[in-house]
């Protein structure tokens, strides 16, 4: 079932499987022991002979304890490992050899953004730069010199309010250059599963990978004051 993006879904599904296994194992064990080892008469037997003022006899098993230190550790190493490539993907460096999204596109060039099924990662030939700036409590988008087909800004009526709108083209990769004019904000491209804080006096970046045609909301997810909940914008990804 598609949740957010293929990149997110792959991780999510894998994590869910392991969560279910860990859950089944733990709760199965808990369920069994809570019934199988319950006291018959509600009091006895005092298995380890607990006595007031006496530190109880040790009850341990080095092999078992090492097992449930090492096995979870291996699982965690595995989960970290499978999180690695997607991490590289969404925090890919720009303009570098090993980046996933090439150099900045020249005028008229298209990104050809694709989701590489075998690698499970996004790839593009080149990217476009867009600007996002947060200000209490409105987003402003900047398309710099991009063609209106690639990037356009405007306004839309959302929930009865005039809200900023950014139009992007499906199949293009964008690098958002972000800052804030006052306090911390964070644009959440809900349907793309990405967010990153915008900080005053600093520049942060994030990859906006417009892979599917959809109109969705962009929400502010770093609390920024009175009108935080309504600091929204429309994102239009068109064909």
């Amino acid at each position, binding site marked *: 079932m598609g949740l957010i993006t293929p990149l997110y879904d792959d991780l999510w599904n894998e994590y869910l499987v392991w*969560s279910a296994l860990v859950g089944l194992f733990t709760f199965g064990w808990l369920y069994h*022991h809570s019934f199988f080892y319950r006291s018959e008469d509600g009091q006895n037997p005092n298995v380890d002979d607990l006595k*007031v003022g006496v530190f109880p006899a040790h009850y341990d098993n080095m092999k078992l304890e090492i097992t449930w230190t090492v096995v979870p550790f291996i699982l965690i190493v595995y989960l970290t490992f499978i999180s690695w490539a997607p991490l590289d993907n969404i925090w890919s460096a720009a303009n570098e050899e090993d980046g996933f999204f090439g150099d900045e596109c020249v005028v008229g060039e298209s990104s050809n953004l694709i989701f590489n099924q075998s690698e499970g990662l996004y790839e593009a030939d080149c990217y476009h730069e867009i600007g996002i700036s947060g200000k209490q409590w409105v987003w402003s988008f900047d398309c710099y010199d991009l063609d209106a087909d690639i990037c356009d800004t405007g306004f839309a009526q959302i929930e009865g309010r005039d809200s900023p709108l950014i139009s992007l083209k499906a199949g293009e990769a964008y690098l958002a250059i972000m800052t804030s004019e006052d306090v911390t904000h964070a644009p959440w491209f809900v349907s793309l599963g990405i967010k990153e804080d915008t900080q005053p006096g600093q520049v942060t970046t994030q990859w906006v990978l417009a892979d599917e045609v959809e109109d969705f909301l962009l929400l502010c997810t770093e609390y920024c004051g009175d009108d935080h909940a309504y600091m929204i914008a429309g994102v239009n990804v068109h064909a």
Partner: protein
Amino acid sequence: MEKKTLITRSMVVLILISIAMVVSPAVNSLPNGIGYEQVKSGGCNCHNGVADTGVVVALDGLPEQYNVSETYELTISFTGGPSTDGAANLGGFNLWASGGEITPVDATVQSRDSSEVTHTEAGNDYRSWTVEWTAPSHGRNVDFVLHVNSVNGDGVQGPEDKWNRLSITVAGSLGAALDPADPFTVLATLIIISGILLVITILYGFYRTNPDAFDWEHLAPWITEWLTSTDHKKIGTLYFVQGMFFLGIGGILAMMIRLQLAGPEMGFISQDQYNQFFTLHGTTMIFLAAMPLIAGFANWIVPLQIGAPDLAMPRLNALSFWLQPFAALLIFTGVFSGEGADTGWTGYAPYIVTAGAHTGVTMWVAGQIMLVASSTLTGINFLTTMAVMRAEGMGWMQMPLFTWSILVANLMLFLSIPAFGVGLIQVYLDRTISTAFYDISAGGDPLLWSHLFWYFGHPEVYVVIVPAFGVISEVLATSARRSIFGYRSMVYALAGIGILSFIVYGHHMLTSGMSPTLRFVTMMTTMLVAVPTGIKIFNWLKTMHGGSLVYRTHTLWALGFIVTFTLGGISGMFFPSIAMDTHLHETYFVVAHFHYVLVGGTVFGFFAAIYYWYPKMTGRMLDEKLGTLHFLTAFVTYNGIFWPMHRLGVVGMPRRTHTYFITTEDFTNLPEWAADWNLFISVSAFLFFFSNFILVANMLLSLVRGDKAPADPWGGWSFEWMTSSPPPTPSFDWHNLPVLKDANEHIANEPGRVGKWFSRLMVPEDHEEVSH
């Protein structure tokens, strides 16, 4: 009973009732529906900014007083305004009613929603229109607001185009509509009522101690004794009462938040108030409820468990406590002035120092500085006590696990809270004398606060959960009639969590724009936390193996804890995986996760502690039937609140927002079922809130008529079960301190290598000073 006593007593009751009556009228109603305050008052700006009295508006067909649910035919008409020869005198209208339903009867009128109609394109050429109004069933007065345009019909907006407004109120049989209650008044009233209930409970407690001496002469010294006591048990009780009180206040705040979120775009709480409520909810629950509850049990149980007559520094202990209520007062000051802190419990800079943040923030910061002082003093006191006052025979590796958990928690707190203190003082100075630590234009760093806060904040959440681990270890082992499985690995796991807590905090800032290298490192370290936590969970489960589990209420809570805490632990594993975190960060998935850990972990753990140690503290057994009822209702409703939040977070519901958006034709956001689940969560939240009154009732009833508790009702081994229930003061005789025996004689009194090294850092354990 003496007549004089009776009079005094009834006077007290009368005074309390009158205070309650004076206060309660402030809470007079529920809000009168969504959008009531948005009475159309703006007028028609499209033609001319100012209403024109030359246009005479009429709304006919309304009765003097309506009959409920009856349908009336209304005629809207106007005269006056521009009239151009040859063109019809054109116009339009908009009619809104605060109640009932307005429906169009022909094609000249269209409905906007059930409370509002306007003309259609075809209805543009008319001077009168007809609609039907079905009166509401509530019988309250209904306001009508009618706007009409009178234009010259040339299709061009100009100064000759006019409009006017008519407001009419139709009486209902029940009179004026009730004013919507101000949530602030509701909150303040509930806080005051809770305070009064607390006072009544305390007075009742005093009354029960000696029913024949219920007068001021006896009350004054009794209160003085509580206010000035340095006994660890009394201070523990004070902490406990404070913690329970603020658990209630934090709960009330949560209920108001859930009322607001019961449906999308509700208007119960204004945004401004909502922001203050979630800020105070977080601050209250962490600092004024969870921490005092832990400190309460630590005060009560740690000296008893290590065989010490009191804490090492009893006066310092009293100071630590008495800083708390005054800090609480400061934190809440803003609410009573309507300008409470609105920064979220994390208080991110630079918002916290901007002019936009409420004035109450300064007080909130000041209050927390006092809490920092309180926690630091507590840390010193407990660490010292555990280092120097353990009973003979009790090495580090023979301390009960609850004591160990308090040791680890206090070490973490002690090493992390100074950073928070520094941050708070910087913010305080920025806000009061205009220093520029967080003034970005003067070169301040917005991320400095985040680093200082989370360097403290992450150990802090472990400080809150680790003592619950200790409680569960005690409760489960005693209930299973077994030694805890892997005592030593439990201690190392606790210590491991303590150490890891300092190198994982960056996961709160994975999307903050801090150095990618740091973000990457914290992703890996965060994953590691699962290892020691896993050891603890598996050790608990293994403890039950081969045991003889006795089902008491505290056993149920301990088993429930394992379920909810494991779920919270599993959901925690999703965040360090960055490609998921960029989506899940700051959503309801996070809210679900940390409530599973903090409520399902800390609160459930301390519920278990209450059922486990209450007989020791009061000398009375709690009612097991009420306890089981409390567990069943609270456990089910609790999961009803937080489980659906996972899904809501994934589909796009952000936290800390006053509302949420359901997908419309134009833009995708939350699916429609999100609203239903939010309502479900709100209902569950109220049930959970009220279910906890079963616990309160149980504690009060058992205090009065519970069975007398024996010294060791559950068959535990540690020293607290050696004392009578309740224990004497001082808890152990200074000249006859207990001595711990060890069932593992071959290693008795021989701490391991780590223990020896650790001991060397501390004061020598026995009296064998170095000889000269």
